């Protein structure tokens, strides 16, 4: 019994990581209907940015991420402004092709600069710390922090979405970009801000990606897959749904691994397929669409 509770809790916390991966993707898709196939590679790229800042300035990973965030915000704005905005239109293919191309460029660029060696964002004692809940169950501090960060990120994004004028503009533009322009909203600027914010979320994902496990330039696409599944499970455009989606995949993987370690990844994908079959529009599809 204790073992199963432990498995479940581990799964939920792993889900926090997947929800973090997925939040940026969900944000960009929700506002622009843009599927960023380079999402996972941007997470890896950001992890390398954090790594470089850590080694150059002798910072710990958290401070380095704080420092990287504004730069990544700027990178996201520029990326959308100069490249992705040109691909958005009636046709869904151009953004897919361009972000697929970006994915390959980023992977090869990182391989060129950093080689294929595994890296890690060393965080010190916190990596192995844990909190005992009694009854033989202990939660890793790092795992808890990941889940708390995922919830925090989604809370902040929801505040932006539902409590600010910018968030109102995000939702309006997502609903009807043509009429949004009639309100004086410059869609291209709104889209660029959305990608800029998504890049900050990516920076937070990168922090936990790099602290929890080794990373190298090639692991982006697999993160994209988990993120994608979490977004679809949750229902397109719902951030809390994305958190739920991440947790479902995490729990499925933990349970799968408990039965047989080889089943971990497969169990996550099976959970995704099961939700797709039962609720094709996801668990929390957006109203009015």
């Amino acid at each position, binding site marked *: 019994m204790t073992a199963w509770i432990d498995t479940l809790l581990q799964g939920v916390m792993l889900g926090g990581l997947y929800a973090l991966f997925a939040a940026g993707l969900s944000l960009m898709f929700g506002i622009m209907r843009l599927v960023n196939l380079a999402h996972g590679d941007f997470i890896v790229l950001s992890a390398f940015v954090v790594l470089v800042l850590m080694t150059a300035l002798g910072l710990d990973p958290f401070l380095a991420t704080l420092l990287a965030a504004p730069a990544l915000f700027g990178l996201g704005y520029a990326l959308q402004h100069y490249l992705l905005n040109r691909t958005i239109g009636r046709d869904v293919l151009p953004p897919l092709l361009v972000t697929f191309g970006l994915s390959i460029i980023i992977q090869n660029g990182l391989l060129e600069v950093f080689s294929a060696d595994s890296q890690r964002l060393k965080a010190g004692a916190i990596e192995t710390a844990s909190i005992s809940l009694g009854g033989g169950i202990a939660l890793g501090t790092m795992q808890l922090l990941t889940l708390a960060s995922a919830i925090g990120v989604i809370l902040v994004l929801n505040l932006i979405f539902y409590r600010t004028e910018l968030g109102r503009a995000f*939702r309006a533009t*997502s*609903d009807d970009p*043509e009429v949004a*322009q*009639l*309100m*004086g*909203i410059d869609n291209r600027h709104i889209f660029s801000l959305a990608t800029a914010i998504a890049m900050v979320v990516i920076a937070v994902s990168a922090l936990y990606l790099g602290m929890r496990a080794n990373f190298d330039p090639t692991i982006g696409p697999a993160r994209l897959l988990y993120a994608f599944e979490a977004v679809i499970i949750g229902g397109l455009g719902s951030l809390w749904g994305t958190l739920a989606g991440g947790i479902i995949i995490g729990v499925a993987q933990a349970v799968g691994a408990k039965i047989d370690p080889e089943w971990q990844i497969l169990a996550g994908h099976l959970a995704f397929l099961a939700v797709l079959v039962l609720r094709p529009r996801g668990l929390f599809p957006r109203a*009015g669409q």
Partner: protein
Amino acid sequence: MALIETRGLTAFYGDFQALYGIDLRLEEGETLAIIGANGAGKSTFLKTIAGLLAATPESVVYAGRPIGGLSAPQIVRLGISLVPEGRRLFPSLSVEENLAIGAYGRHDCGYWSLARIYELFPALAARRRAPSHTLSGGEQQMAAIGRALMANPRVLLCDEVSLGLAPVVIRNIYAALPRIKASGSSIILVEQDIVQALQVANRVYCFQEGRMSLEGRPAELSRDQIHTAYFGA
């Protein structure tokens, strides 16, 4: 000087030409009606003025200034607001948010505020927190007009505000016009409902297949003239 003047305005959807040289004037304080059969180009005309379709600079002049081809956000900042055909409220925004977004990026205090819109359309006040897609057709139209007014426009462009509404609802909406005019807006109304349009307009233009087929004051136009201009000879 006219508030808005179009000079040989043309509009295209790809290769298809929808407007063939429209010359129209809106004087300050006027209410204009544009009538015409389905597909005559009325919505296209309003959308072009509002900046949603391309135009050459000199083909739309606003208070003496060429504005043709400016972007829609630029045009609304200048004081021209469009109530689009079919209301097109934002479904994921509440009624109040739909109104508030009409004043996006503005911090000037003009005549219109949320409170004044609720005064104009009391039905909206009761539904302010409701998701906009739960409103009745008439309430949706009121919200769409209120949303456009929140920008405190000098020119209000209304595209078929009475479409699909019951006569009593249409009367309610038209009853708001005097107050809107008194707030300082000049108005261009696109209507299929000719009787309604002739009642409120100072002047009427009729469109036919992308061209202007008739212009005049309602009192000076005969039924036959309008019939011919509307349906063709």
